[in-house]
């Protein structure tokens, strides 16, 4: 009996200790969240970007730096992504686009590609869980890219996630997988041509096309009217969101690597030397402050014209 009671006391004691520790953690976390929200309030005196894009570079370098086994860098990177999404949505950024996997990345070793695909599938399924960030913040998820290049399980998981979150409307997360900007543009051009071709065929069928199909495209005017910028833009994968206001690339590289080439025509490009798994609130804060400073300068210039 004594032993049994003693055990109970011991168990109760350890639960209380755990409770105590988790309570302290909880209080601390709430305090940090409160501070963060105060910071966002201050930031929102200036313009808050509507759309931030991320090139999440440096996962492998991080794993090497920390002497972790290969593949762990990407897992830690995923945690960093969840934090960054939380900060963005708390701040009121409506659209976030991330460069998860490029078509060029298929050139890597098959083992690495496979482990990335497995990780992606695991995390996509995690996104659909009740307590996941997408449900907490009402985020609609899009998977953008040439999804036919993905293996079937990953593609199906992606499609399920898109259907499951289709009714969320507070924010948007665009995950670029099997994506390349030049591939996207070619796809948009093909779709635009196909659409125009169908239009002309219909016109001809109804007799009001004046035999356009038979005519050679020698006159400038015909070429001018055939395809417009807007025709191409509406067929871009990333047309689910407006053009990004800031494009953040980690790990110190300053290049686009075939990401959002069309959409980043006027975007503020921010490169930070921190590796993606190490990115935190202060880096985002710094990027936004720089963006705001530049925004004020551009507005001033525009008013002068």
């Amino acid at each position, binding site marked *: 009996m004594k032993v049994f009671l003693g055990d109970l006391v011991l168990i109760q004691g350890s639960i209380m200790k755990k409770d105590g520790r988790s309570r302290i953690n909880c209080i601390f976390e709430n305090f940090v969240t409160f501070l963060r929200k105060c910071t966002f309030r201050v930031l929102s005196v200036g313009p808050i970007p509507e759309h931030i894009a991320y090139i999440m570079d440096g996962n*492998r370098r991080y794993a090497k730096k920390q002497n972790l086994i290969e593949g762990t860098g990407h897992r830690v990177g995923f945690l960093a992504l969840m934090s960054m999404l939380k900060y963005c949505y708390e701040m009121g950024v409506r659209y976030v686009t991330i460069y998860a996997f*490029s*078509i*060029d*990345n298929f*050139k*890597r*070793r098959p083992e*690495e590609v496979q482990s990335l695909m497995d990780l992606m599938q695991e995390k996509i399924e995690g996104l659909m869980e009740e307590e996941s960030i997408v449900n907490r913040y009402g985020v609609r998820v899009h998977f953008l890219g040439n999804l036919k290049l993905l293996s079937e399980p990953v593609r199906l998981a992606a499609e399920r996630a898109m259907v499951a979150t289709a009714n969320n409307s507070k924010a948007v997360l665009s995950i670029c997988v099997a994506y390349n*900007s*030049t*591939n996207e*543009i*070619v796809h948009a*051009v*093909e779709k*635009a*041509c*196909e659409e*125009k*071709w169908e239009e*002309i065929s219909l016109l001809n069928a109804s007799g009001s096309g004046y035999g356009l*199909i038979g005519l*050679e*495209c020698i006159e400038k005017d*015909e*070429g*001018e009217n*055939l*395809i*417009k*910028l807007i025709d*191409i833009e509406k067929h871009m994968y990333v047309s689910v969101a407006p053009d990004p206001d800031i494009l953040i690339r980690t790990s110190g*590289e*300053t*290049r*686009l*690597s*075939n990401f959002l*080439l*069309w959409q*980043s*025509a*006027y*975007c*503020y*490009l*921010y*490169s930070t030397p921190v590796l993606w798994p190490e990115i935190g609130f202060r880096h985002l804060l710094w990027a936004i402050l720089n963006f705001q400073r*530049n925004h004020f300068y551009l507005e001033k210039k525009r008013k002068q*014209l």
Partner: protein
Amino acid sequence: MICLLTLPPVPLELKSPLSFRTRAQQQQHSHPFSQTLRSHTVPHKTLTGGGTATTTVTNVALSEHNDLNAAEEDEPLPAELNEELMPNHVAVIMDGNGRWAKQRGLPTSAGHQAGSRSLRELVEICCKWGIRVLTVFAFSYDNWIRPKVEVDFLMNLFEREIKSQMQKFVSEGIRISVIGDSSKLPQSLQKLISDAEEKTKDNSRFQLIVAASYSGKYDIVQACKSLACKVKDGVIQLEDISESLVEQELETNCTEYPYPDLLIRTSGELRVSNFLLWQLAYTEFFFVKELWPDFGKAEFVEALISFQQRQRRYGARLS
């Protein structure tokens, strides 16, 4: 963001045909031009200006090598730079002329004049250090909304510079190409440009591409229109549309190296501003705080050092 074109004096001409390279070919291309020539030792010889098309390849290679030697003596490559890692194609967004002038209490035109000196210097250095193509963002399609006085000044300046530098281009082996919607430029300038392009089209030692009234999006749209026309005429099928077909229709198809290896933007702005969008897919960016008129050899060396230290992986892994 108005930038200025001027045309520089440069060494000898080499006549050989240009051929279009796809992005894959350009990635593999490792600058054999300077490597092969620098490995030879030959007595000095000069070609008279305006060498003819009948010049043999060997003679041309010899003279080119000799003049490269001479050029290098004038402006040797700094010790910090590795000759093997020099970029083939450098692109520059020449930003900051207006701010430079304002800082000094001068009119904007003075800023553009100062900017022209920077460009002259840069073109000379690029030629001497074996860079094959320099593309400069002289005037954006978006710049037409600038005050008419400034726009007219720039158009006049452009015309004056081409006229004054034309002879040097012809004799010294620079090919000039202009990309952009030239239909918005004054008629006289359009004619001057097409004459200049025609006269220098066979020069291949160095190419200066001037983006005037240019928009990266417009470039892609006009490529798309050409492809749409070809599909309509049955020249190609819809399924044939691919990245390499689009590449061939872009305005940068006038050069053997359509993709910049390095993009430099001055004045501290961190954006591409609708310059070469497709072509910048794998370009290394280098942003400098200096205003364009203050951008000189030292800043360019710094950009090149940074470029040479970068690991260009094109999405793959190096190890």
